[in-house]
């Protein structure tokens, strides 16, 4: 299957391409003052307001670098009720796709409670690429804020 690759700092991750709605350039984000730090802001896509979560901020504690290769990966996030919400994930080095078999990924053997989104790891000549489960990416506080508000945004 096809995977979209990105980097957060020096760590390489892979996301199932099927789960990607679209990859966008790093648009200008309108900040949300009361949102957690990892929520970088909102942008407009196909007539809708979409929140953007800075994965670098979320996992590394620093904002993503402003480069041409830093892009927004729009995924469809399912909330608790199974309602889909578009969320833009800001990640670095979003420039490659990779076709690999799922069995090429090897489980880490250790699941970290603090990072439930981390999946098995693929090793290539460059190093490790970790499968990321985007559905488990957002911590509850963040997702709550996003999805409780998203309906409001959609309406505004």
């Amino acid at each position: 299957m096809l995977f979209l690759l990105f980097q957060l700092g020096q760590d390489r991750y892979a996301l199932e391409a099927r789960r990607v709605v679209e990859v966008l350039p790093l648009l200008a984000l309108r900040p949300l003052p009361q949102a957690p730090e990892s929520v970088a802001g909102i942008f407009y896509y196909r007539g809708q307001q979409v929140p953007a979560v800075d994965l670098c901020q979320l996992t590394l504690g620093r904002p993503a670098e402003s480069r041409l290769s830093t892009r927004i990966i729009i995924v469809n996030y399912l909330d608790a009720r199974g309602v889909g919400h578009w969320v833009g994930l800001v990640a670095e080095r979003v420039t490659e796709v990779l076709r690999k078999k799922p069995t090429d990924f090897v489980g880490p053997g250790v699941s970290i409670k603090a990072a439930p989104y981390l999946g098995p790891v693929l090793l290539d000549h460059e190093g490790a690429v970790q499968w990321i489960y985007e559905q488990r990416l957002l911590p509850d506080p963040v997702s709550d804020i996003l999805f409780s508000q998203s309906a409001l945004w959609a309406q505004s």
Partner: protein
Amino acid sequence: MTSDQHHIPQASTERPRCPRHAPTATGKADCWNQIGIGGDGSCPELPKVICCRNCPVYSAAAVRFLARPLPEGYQLERTEEFAQTSKLPTARQISLVLFRLQADWFALPTWACQEVAERRPIHSLPHRSQQIVLGLVNVRGELLVCVSLDQLFQVGSSQAQQAHTLARLLVAGQNGHRLVFPVDEVHGPHRFDAKDLQSFSAPVARAPACLQGLLAWEGRTVSLFDVEQLFTVVTRSLS
């Protein structure tokens, strides 16, 4: 077609490592210009990759290029652009590929266009010296019949051929049949509202049989081909 050859680059300042070879396989900052296709062709990878463009070193260089900061105003441009992106197309719209033959503009439905390719040599058939069939042309390894629509529809122009750089080969397909015809320019695919298409309700004097209708596009009149009819006409003229 699957490519296992996409490689994930490292941090932008490091040289990419070729997966199957030692780190110093190419070893140069712009090996494509020095020892590659653009240079003296002495690169050891060339026999394997055929062309520098296929080489992971090349693509890694391209990725490095993208590590640069955004140009001024670019972010805002793009934000604007995406803000204005319309919703996904509705069925009420038709997508057309526009092309120019001599001075006239024509269109084909996008589904019928398989490919727009660069001009390449047309191998003329020895026994066919008809003006319509130009010959055979290699498209992705397949030899397809190349037809001159200009000649077919007698699209005349007193002017000499212009804008060679934009000349393309349009590969159209329908029901498994494929044709190639050279065009002078290609635009699109563009979406048009179905309502903008002017069907030929009234017979037009010079309307060739294959046309489906007319469109206005950027001040030009575009004649939309009927794909089925086009193919019929062409096939007939081939035999």
